[in-house]
Structure formats: C-alpha cells, structure tokens
C-alpha cells in the first residue's frame, strides 16, 4: 500500500531538522517572552501596593468627570439637521472621491500585477524548461530501458527458435541415417544371398544336356 520508502521519510525529516529560525527572530521571540513573564508579575504587584488614598482620589475624579460630562450633554443645544448634513456630506464626498480612489486603486493593482508578472515570468519559464527537460530525460531513459528489454526478449526467443530448428534437423538426419542403415543392411543380406546362389551354381556346373538322348 505504501509507495513512499523510508529513505524519502528520512530525507524529509532531515530537511525539517535543517529548518532554523534566524538569530534576530530568536532574540525577538525570547525578548517578547521575557517581557511577558516580567510584565505579568509586575502589574498585579503595582496594583496591590497602591495606597488607599489614591483609590479614593481616583474614584472622586471619575465621579467629577462623569458629572461634568452629563451636565455638558444636558446643557448643549440639540444638533440640528445632523442627519441631513451627514447625508449631504456623505453623498458629496462619495461622488467626488469615489472615482478618484477607484482609479488610483486600479492603477496601483495593475502596476503591482505587472511587476509581479514580470518578476515571475523568467523564473517560471526557466522552471518549466527544466521540468520539461527532466521529464524528457525520464521518458527517454524509460523508453531505452523498455526497448532494450524488448530486444533482449526477442533475441532470446530467436535463439530458442534456432535451437528448436537445429534439434529438429538433427532428429531428421538421424532418422535418415537409421533408414539408410537399415536399407544398407537389407541390401548386404540380399547381395550375400545372391552371391551364395551364384557360387552354388558355379560349383555344381552346367546342367547335363539330355535333349540329345
């Protein structure tokens, strides 16, 4: 099921172990933590050490400020046509500023996009070319391997066929020799028999002629 091997996992873990934060970032993080630790301790102590007098003074000040605020709100004249004024201002500001802001925003986005595309274009081209080259090399290697394997297989099959043909040929020759051997033996036997007959005939001589008597 698993297609990833342990070497790849070790490689990835090694890469992870090589990730190091910068010295500046480390110092900053440690300083922040140090501030957090010491800050958290000092704030409650300061609050505890406040004298009772200051607490009363602060409460009185808050009361006075609150009273002044309420009095001021009650004595101030009511805002007239506030909503209308706000609506008018809003519409006029909107009509004057919106197209300008929109245009500027669009220009800025265009500029940024163009810059980003210009910067990334060459890098992407190079990356793409490298990737295509790598893919082609892989494809060529695979094709070569496949062709080589196929050729080997065909050669083995060819050798097997030649061997089979040779064995068949030998069997036929052997059969022919057997046949010839058997025929040669029969011929010799026949020859010997005929020769024996001839010899017998010569030894006995010609048959007497009894036709004169």
């Amino acid at each position, binding site marked *: 099921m698993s297609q990833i091997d*342990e070497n790849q*996992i070790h490689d*990835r*873990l090694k890469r992870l172990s090589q990730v190091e934060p910068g010295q500046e*970032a480390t110092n900053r993080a440690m300083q922040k933590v140090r501030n957090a630790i010491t800050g958290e301790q000092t704030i409650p102590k300061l609050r505890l050490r406040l004298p009772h007098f200051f607490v009363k003074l602060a409460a009185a000040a808050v009361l006075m400020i609150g009273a002044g605020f309420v009095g001021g709100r009650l004595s101030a004249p009511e805002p007239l046509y506030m909503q209308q004024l706000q609506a008018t201002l809003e519409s006029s500001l909107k009509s004057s500023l919106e197209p300008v802001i929109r245009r500027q925003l669009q220009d800025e986005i265009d500029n940024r996009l163009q810059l980003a595309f210009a910067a990334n274009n060459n890098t992407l081209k190079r990356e793409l070319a490298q990737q295509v080259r790598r893919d082609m090399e892989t494809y060529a290697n695979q094709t070569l391997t496949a062709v080589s394997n196929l050729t080997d297989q065909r050669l083995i099959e060819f050798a097997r066929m030649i061997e089979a043909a040779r064995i068949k040929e030998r069997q036929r020759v052997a059969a022919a020799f057997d046949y010839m051997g058997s025929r040669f033996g029969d011929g010799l036997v026949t020859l010997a028999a005929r020769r024996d007959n001839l010899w017998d005939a010569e030894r006995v001589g010609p048959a007497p002629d009894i036709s004169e008597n």
Partner: protein
Amino acid sequence: MRSRQKELLELLDKSGADLYALLTRLTLREEVAEELMQELFIKLNNSRGFGKIANWNAYARRSAINLAFDWRRSQKQTVLALGQVAEPVSNDDSPLGKLIHSEELQETLDAVGRLKKASREVLIMRYLQQKSYDNIAEKLGKTSHQVRALCSRAIRNLRDILGSNEHKSSKKEIHNVTNR
C-alpha cells in the same frame, strides 16, 4: 510567585532558543512560532501544578509539541485568504522547488501529528532535534533500546500514513481524470 518567575526565566535562558527552533520546525512559520512561544510560557506560568513538575525542560518541550500540533489542526479547519498565507521557511530559491518542498514538509508534519504522543515525541527528538538515542533515553527515563524500537515503529507508522495519503490522492486524481 517570584521563584516561579525566576525558574521560568532560567528555563527561557537555557532552552528558549531550542524551544523556539522546535516550534519553527513544527509550524514552518517564524511569526507563528513566536506567538506559540509566548503562549507556551504564559501557560507554564499559569499552570497549577507548578511545584509538582520535576523536569521543566521535558514539560516545556511536550507542551510546545502539543501547542504546535494543536495549531496545525486548527489551521486545517481554517480557510485562509490568499493574502494571509505567509511565505514558508525554505532554503530552496526556485518557486516550484519551494512549493514542492513546502508541500512535502507540511504533509510529513501532518502525518507526524497523527502519530501517538509517545512515538511523536521520540521521533521529533531524534529526527527534528537530532538528539542521540542515549540522550533521548536519559531524558525520557527509558533505555536506549526502547528508544530505538520506538523510533523504528514511529517511522514505520509514518510511512503507512504517508503511503495511505498518497494512495488516496492518486485515487482521487484518477477519479478526477475519469470524470473529465
């Protein structure tokens, strides 16, 4: 209260850099590591069983690992806008290489997060912090042999998780192709 502060500051001086590096490796984001580092020490400061903790280093390391993987889990559930995605830490300059490496590392870290806690801690100490087996054994109160076995099992589990991920993704790709 003062003794706790003192101990935390000592811990920060002694292991702060290591903890920060560990958090950076587990999150692959320096700014997140910084936040988590702060959170870690605030948690340590507010922990109730302060007097009962015998080994502060081990406790802090374990808490840091848990915080980092909690963050990773929460990130999975949050859909980030394009502008919010920060550049991950990477040594490769090319964009494609960065992307592939970053994907692989994120996938590996997610798989590490799915391991059991004991295996995960040993694996992180051994492979991410590059500590020796003897050192890990001493810190965890185990034998070196046990640590080796744990590491080996963790790698095997990691391979299974990553393998099943690949299997799933390849099946999904095939499904997508056939749908087209």
